């Protein structure tokens, strides 16, 4: 008897899957479609960049494309991270961009997309530099006070000021190593899984965002290279 009920449920499922699920408790997606998409922008080049007019960067570029598809106008809100994330939590914004990563401390109070792109902070070498077997005691260019210099110190390497200019190795994001003047070594200092932040529980909007990001996944590296110029 009960098994039959379970089987009946099984048969019912595909019909439900056709429905427009999941929906948002606060109706974000409804508001955005043919309405306004409110985007908070935290300055974090090349992911999101404040400008005098409209924000630029990888994530604003992606959202412009999505908004066009949904027939939405975008309201950009620029501000400090804390303020924007509180606004997001309260439902005053639909999404906040600014190079947020999967394990960011805010994620507990907020929703986030599945990681849509992974970047690595690597130790890169000049073409003529000898292979770097181990980091310990190696001189690697990293700006003083940067996270990269911290990782290097932890691993026993010696961070040097990039302005000296005569460095053989430098800590750089992997996407920036394109012009052939530097090659990545196997030393990875950090891995960043990038996400967009949304309000908790607005699942319909979240799913729309994730579908879009899945579809545009291959466009992200070129976008990064367009918007970003990294130096150690």
């Amino acid at each position, binding site marked *: 008897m*009960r098994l039959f009920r379970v089987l009946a449920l099984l048969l019912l499922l595909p019909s439900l*899957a056709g429905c427009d699920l999941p929906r948002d*408790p606060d109706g974000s997606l409804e508001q955005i479609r043919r309405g306004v998409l409110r985007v908070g922008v935290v300055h974090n080049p090349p992911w999101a960049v404040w400008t005098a007019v409209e924000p630029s960067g990888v994530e604003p570029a992606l959202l412009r494309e999505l908004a066009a598809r949904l027939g939405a106008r975008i309201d950009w809100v620029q501000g400090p991270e804390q303020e924007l994330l509180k606004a997001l939590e309260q439902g005053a914004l639909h999404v906040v961009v600014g190079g947020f990563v999967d394990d960011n401390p805010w994620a507990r109070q907020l929703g986030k997309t599945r990681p849509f792109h992974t970047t690595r902070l690597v130790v890169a070498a000049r073409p003529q530099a000898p292979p770097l077997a181990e980091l310990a005691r190696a001189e690697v260019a990293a700006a003083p006070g940067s996270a990269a210099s911290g990782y290097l110190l932890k691993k026993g390497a010696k961070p040097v000021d990039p302005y000296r200019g005569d460095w053989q190795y430098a800590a750089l994001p992997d996407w920036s190593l394109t012009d052939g003047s530097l090659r990545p070594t196997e030393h990875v200092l950090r891995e960043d899984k990038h996400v967009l932040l949304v309000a*908790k529980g*607005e699942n319909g909007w979240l*799913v729309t965002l*994730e*579908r879009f990001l899945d579809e545009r996944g291959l466009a992200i590296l070129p976008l990064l290279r367009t918007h970003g110029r990294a130096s150690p």
Partner: protein
Amino acid sequence: MSAAWPSFPCCGRTAVRRRKPHRLPQEQAEARLRAKRLEWATLIAMGTVVVLMGLVTGNSQAMRTAWIEDMLSFVPPVAVLIAMRVEQRAPDARFPFGYYRTVSIAFLCAALALTVFGGLLLFDAVQTLLSRDRPTIGTLRLFGETVWQGWVMIAVLIYSVIPPVLLGRLKEPVAKRLHNKALYADARMNRADWMTGAAAICGVLGIGVGLWWADAAAAALISLDVLRDGLRNLSMAVRDLADEAPRHIDPPEFDPLPRRMRELLERQAWVKEAAVMLREEGDLLTGQVYVVPRSDADLVARVEQAVRDLQALDWRLYDLAVTPVRRLD
């Protein structure tokens, strides 16, 4: 253990009587073997369920609660299997009454675990409801498609109820035949598992249609069910250990066996009056029988015969003490 109990200086070999081990009738011995196999099957089947659910649980509190409940469903089979192993040990100098109570003790521990977890899960669910915390469930990539995780969760939840419901149905008659309350409670909990699955599915579907509270409400329902199971089993285990008069497993009415035993005795010519006190010891029944003989002639032989006659009434009767007395008070 042997270090702590190097010998029994107080009681030499002759001083301690050990009970003769209880022998199960053929039918019960077979049922016992089957029970063990079914409990192992439960552990394996629930293992697959727990792994699958763990992979997709995501942010649904209802599903997480159902997941924890499925993990908790390891506890009774483990308790039963351990008890069945220990229980079979022959009585020895250290435990002259044998190990038959292991079942009750294992069951008490299992029931306590269920109760505590049920309470914790309920607290968690109510807290989520009060804090209006909204579950966020996005998509995952499945065979190159982007699918809402909720659908995958529901599919796994449907799978998760099939093994326990089937196994519960198989275990129930075996538990009755063995008169094993722990096994019976385990079977009942398994059989009721479809409700947990259904509640969790409702929770996930609730999230799907934008009712954020449906999830925590479903979680609260599931935890209430765990808590109820725990309390019910706890009461049963405590009553067993406190020597309640024997009851049937289902419906839990008092067993008429003591009356039948008294009647059997009082039908005998040498018995003037008789009284019976029984208690459960694990799956078995033991206790004292008092008889007032009409004469003292041949009393030892008569008492020994009475023990044999009484124990023939039911396979569960074990190690009865028949005491001749002048009068019953």
